[in-house]
């Protein structure tokens, strides 16, 4: 099953381009994504709606809706080229190597089926140890995601669960097969803030114990940076910044990351005025001629609009910005809004 050397990345996207076909023409969702994730990494993928992060997550399992079309590039998961697989091996890959957790926890469970039956289906094909019955296996799995009273949850229908409980069930089903990669698409966006932390703790503890690589897609830069070692920032269908969480948060190298961090109200100090990003996220119809952020960027120069920025390395970060080097040397992108509240614990997760 494991044909990979540990050094080889478990997820590799190369210049991946995906379009959605709409009535009025194509909309570009991914505009050339390059990303490599090593086995066991926990990566936060941050972006607003329309940034392409959900499309990227879906592309990992080739779960794109039928009106989406890959135009270019490749996606490799555990050594398989996802877009070149025949249906049967593709299902095999989804079943054995991939786990997904989606935003709407209750919607992701079949409303007409008891939870236990659904979990059992996820376990099907797995060999539970011969001494244990399937029922025990289901209970054990539900117990693993820290659900109190697993037997009762197994008997319940999804609509009888709270959002937090349902998300734990979804996690249990995704982790039932001990996948190599878990894609969590805004797993806590629909949850109340008290249970949010608990669910995230469970996800991360479980994946760490299983050695599962995690791609956590989120719109919340700070929440992601607090728990992931590595942060990937997406904008306009591209990865614009990629690096260690503490570095990305403390010294963002891309003007967009910087602007995003300084426009978050939860980090404004009392009496301080937010600096909003003007305009709105782009809607691409084809390849962006230059940098997709150019028209909203404070540091824009002529070539930003006409020339696609090449990959630059700044500090520990990989950045798609023409002026990355220059901005770092002039220290144009400090984060005045973020004084000292992120000490060394960042990046360590919990």
């Amino acid at each position, binding site marked *: 099953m494991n044909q990979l050397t540990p050094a080889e990345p478990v997820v590799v996207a190369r210049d991946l381009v995906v379009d959605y076909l709409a009535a009025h023409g194509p909309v570009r969702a991914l505009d050339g994504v390059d990303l490599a994730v090593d086995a066991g990494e926990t990566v936060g993928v941050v972006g607003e709606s329309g940034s392409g992060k959900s499309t990227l997550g879906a592309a990992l399992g080739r779960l794109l809706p039928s009106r989406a079309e890959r135009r270019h590039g490749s996606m490799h998961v555990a050594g398989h080229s996802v877009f070149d697989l025949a249906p049967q091996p593709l299902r095999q890959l989804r079943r054995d190597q991939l786990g997904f957790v989606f935003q709407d926890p209750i919607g992701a469970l079949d409303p007409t089926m008891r939870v236990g039956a659904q979990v059992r289906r996820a376990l099907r094909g797995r060999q539970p140890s011969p001494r244990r019955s399937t029922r025990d296996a289901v209970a054990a799995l539900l117990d693993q995601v820290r659900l109190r009273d697993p037997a009762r949850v197994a008997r319940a229908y999804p609509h009888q669960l709270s959002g937090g409980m349902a998300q734990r069930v979804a996690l249990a089903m995704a982790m039932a097969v001990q996948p190599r990669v878990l894609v969590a698409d805004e797993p806590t966006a629909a949850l109340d803030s008290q249970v949010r932390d608990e669910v995230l703790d469970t996800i991360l503890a479980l994946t760490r114990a299983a050695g599962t690589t995690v791609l956590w897609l989120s719109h919340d830069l700070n929440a992601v940076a607090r728990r992931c070692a590595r942060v990937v920032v997406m904008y306009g269908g591209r990865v614009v910044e990629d690096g260690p969480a503490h570095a990305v948060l403390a010294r963002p190298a891309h003007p967009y990351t910087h602007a995003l961090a300084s426009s978050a109200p939860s980090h*404004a100090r009392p009496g301080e005025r937010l600096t909003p990003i003007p305009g709105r996220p782009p809607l691409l119809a084809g390849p962006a001629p230059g940098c997709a952020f150019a028209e909203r960027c404070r540091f824009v120069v002529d070539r930003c609009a006409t020339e696609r920025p090449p990959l630059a390395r700044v500090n520990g970060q990989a950045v798609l910005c023409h002026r990355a080097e220059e901005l770092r040397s002039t220290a144009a992108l400090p984060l005045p809004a973020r004084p000292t509240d992120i000490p060394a614990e960042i990046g360590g997760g919990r």
Partner: protein
Amino acid sequence: MNQMSIHRDGSVEPPTPTPTPTPVLELDRASVVFPSGPPWRRRRVPAMREVTLQVSAGETLGVVGESGSGKTTTAMVALGLRRPTTGVVRFEGASMPRRRRALAGRMQVVLQHPQWSLDPRMRVGRSVAEPLVVAERLARRAANTTSGAINGSSSGSITDAVAVMLEKVGLDASVAKRHPHELSGGQRQRVAIARALITRPRFVVFDEAVSALDVSVQAQILNLVVDVQAEYGFGALFISHDLGAVRYVAHRIAVMRHGCVVETADTETFYRTPEHEYSRQLLEAL
């Protein structure tokens, strides 16, 4: 022009609005109970329990709470759209009139969903003008029944008012000729704010007004709310599940949970150490 924003710019001290003798809006131990279940086994589900709140002129009261905490019910009660089962609602010192239309133009609301905040079949200009047209028509009718006619504004002056208002919220006046689907979510929320403010209301409710917006657009609208509030001096109820956003725009914050207000305190407190344990949880989750 705006004392409030001077406070807001840079000063670390919390902006304290000049206290007015009577609050613009006051909820006095208001409770709302929904009946539920079949008629023969009617259960009563409380959505608001003895909620007491006051909003002064020029003050923004933030209400923060999870879904199901009763904050939207609180908004509906404050707007007079729902009568409390028990308790009193007072607007400018007087209890809510029996006919809600008596308040036309003096109270407005900005709601959550940008795609539905404006009538999709109406041009933006007409949407913005609507509250003003309604208020003037009602005023004229009231004047006709009591004394003689008063001079209402012509359609020209309404168009002007719309243009002024649109510019005030950072949009070009030409937006008035467009339909909502031609605008982005952030622009539509700006229009919704213009529509709410065109009658110079004394009290405005913002119910999750930025929650559905993109992160990078939220800050624009939050700043706009802060600015117009400072300029027009209305009392505001800013409701959100996001403590970060509430803390940014509000002068005082009420925390709701299970239909109760568990803590009300100055915003300052919510940057440091709120008293109630639940408030602390919310703060930590930021």
